[in-house]
């Protein structure tokens, strides 16, 4: 991986005597999609708000492309495009007028650039309609267009898929993939939708109670050799089975390597057990995530 684009160094945030973020440090590299995962109230939004300068940092520092967010605000923010939670736009303006608002605030954003961005997010047909007539998905796309105007190096998206339907979520995901691949942008996404993050991100940081619990590559997380498989079977002849399994309501769960699956099926048939369905139980990020966060809680308790 390339250079660090975003660096958090011992970032702490205290609000009214309460430590919301506790000594958070991590680095985000060029061209990666970085997921920021945690239960509600873990401090995801607070961290993101400190990155974009909406909130002051109590101690520590955040560097965006080497510029300190607090001391060199303008230089640092030149490199950031962001949506913090739902993109709230001016509803009484058209999509285009909204983009013009943001274009006027940064030097060198041309009309062609605006048209290009509008086309990229697929809003060309509706861009001259008032935003109040837009669906949530369209607003989300306009929000995305808004942060692409100045070709930022980092995109920061707080809960970008909140409230979107599956098609909308997929759309956002595809856009992000395109951006990182084609333009080499880094993307920081926060979410509590784990399955989503699994599909979008290269690396994921899990935070809880304002502390960093774990950072891992998604592939390490998901790709594990042994998996659980669910066999929907006739329960009658089960007692004759002499292997370890977990009894479920309509069948059994067995932990296996992929190669062992046909053998297992054969074994079951030989034992006279009728099989209706076999499917892998994906050990999803969700399981991992819950494992990681509950472990942490146990330590605290």
């Amino acid at each position, binding site marked *: 991986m390339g250079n660090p684009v975003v660096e958090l160094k011992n970032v702490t945030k205290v609000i009214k005597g309460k430590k919301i973020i506790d000594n958070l440090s991590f680095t985000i590299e060029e061209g990666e999609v970085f997921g920021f995962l945690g239960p509600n109230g873990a401090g995801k939004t607070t961290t993101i*708000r400190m990155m974009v300068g909406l*909130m002051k940092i109590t101690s520590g520092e955040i560097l965006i492309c080497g510029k300190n967010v607090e001391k060199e605000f303008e230089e640092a923010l030149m490199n950031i495009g962001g949506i913090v939670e739902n993109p709230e736009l001016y509803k009484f303006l058209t999509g285009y007028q909204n983009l013009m608002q943001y274009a006027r605030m940064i030097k060198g954003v041309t009309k062609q650039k605006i048209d290009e961005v509008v086309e990229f997010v697929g809003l060309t047909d509706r861009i001259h309609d008032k935003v109040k007539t837009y669906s949530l998905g369209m607003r989300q796309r306009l929000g995305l267009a808004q942060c692409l105007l100045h070709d930022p190096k980092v995109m920061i998206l707080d809960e970008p898929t909140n409230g979107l339907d599956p098609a909308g979520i997929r759309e956002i995901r595809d856009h992000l993939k395109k951006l990182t691949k084609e333009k080499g942008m880094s993307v920081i996404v926060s979410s509590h939708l784990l399955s989503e993050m699994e599909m979008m991100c290269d690396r994921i940081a899990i935070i809880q109670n304002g502390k960093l619990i774990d950072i891992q590559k998604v592939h390490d997380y998901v790709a594990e050799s042994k998996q659980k498989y669910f066999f929907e079977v006739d329960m009658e002849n089960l007692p004759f089975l002499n292997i370890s399994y977990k009894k479920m309501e309509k069948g059994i769960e067995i932990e296996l390597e992929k190669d062992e699956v046909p053998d297992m099926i054969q074994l079951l048939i030989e034992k006279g057990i009728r099989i209706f369905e076999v499917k892998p139980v994906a050990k999803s990020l969700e399981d991992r995530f819950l494992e990681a966060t509950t472990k942490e809680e146990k330590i605290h308790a």
Partner: protein
Amino acid sequence: MHNLIVNEWIKIFKRPGTIVMIALLILCVIGMAILTKLYNHHVHSEKIQWQQQVRQEIKQDQKQLSETPQTAANVKKDLEQKIAVNQYRLDHNIPPVKESTGWTFIEDCSHLISFAGLFTIIIAAGIVASEFGWGTVKLLLIRPIKRYKILLSKYITVVLFDLFTLAVIFVVSAVLGFALFGTGDGNNVHLSYTNGKVVEQNIFLYLIKSYLLSSIDVIMVSTMAFMISAVFRNSSLATGLSIFLLFMGGTITAIIATKYSWAKYILFANTDLTQYMDGAPLVEGMTAGFSIIMLLIYFAVFQLLAFLVFTRRDIAA
């Protein structure tokens, strides 16, 4: 900075509410024009004997002046002024304007300035608070522009909006006034009474000056509304309190001033700078310099509060 102000201006004028405000303002001027036209007395005959009438007025006023008790300083000043101006008319052969002309109509319309001030306050109270209300503040403040610049552009826009409403009243009343009542007989000078002397003034300059002076309280109250808006992020509070003070502040201050001399430190004791041009100040010993300094102090305090709170605030929710 220029672009930021353009942005704010667009945000104000793309809302239907603003268009309604401007339309109401124009309707008010039209309404005043109709009323003036209906009740305009045609008193051409009096023009010939105006000298006699003015002499009569002077006599009456002098009589009243001698009967007025020493304590009513304000009334006395008013009378003295009236006498001096009338005497000047006799000496220099300037007949009083009895008929409405375009010029007097513009002057009459200056009463609409507080009404226009209402709209400026609504804009000032909303310009920061609505961004919080709409949630758009999050996208606004993550531009590579320091927060104080954004706030400053908003304040400048408020002042520009106030000047814009003044211009609307002035221009619309001028167009209507000259169309309906003509330009008068050419004797269009304003006689003002300053430091015990009567001075002739160009009527156009006089009108501009009186429009600007009348909007000092509007600007001050708008600044306060802007401050409340930036500090508390609540446009209802800012609008309510400011409009209440705009219309009641003067009265309340006057009541306090009858009993306590510290009333002179209240904002509204100082917003009316015309009190130093004609008539007595609210509290004995107040001067124009004192008032200007008080206004500057209030202004600085409002701005300091607005800017300190706005630039340091954590944007949550």
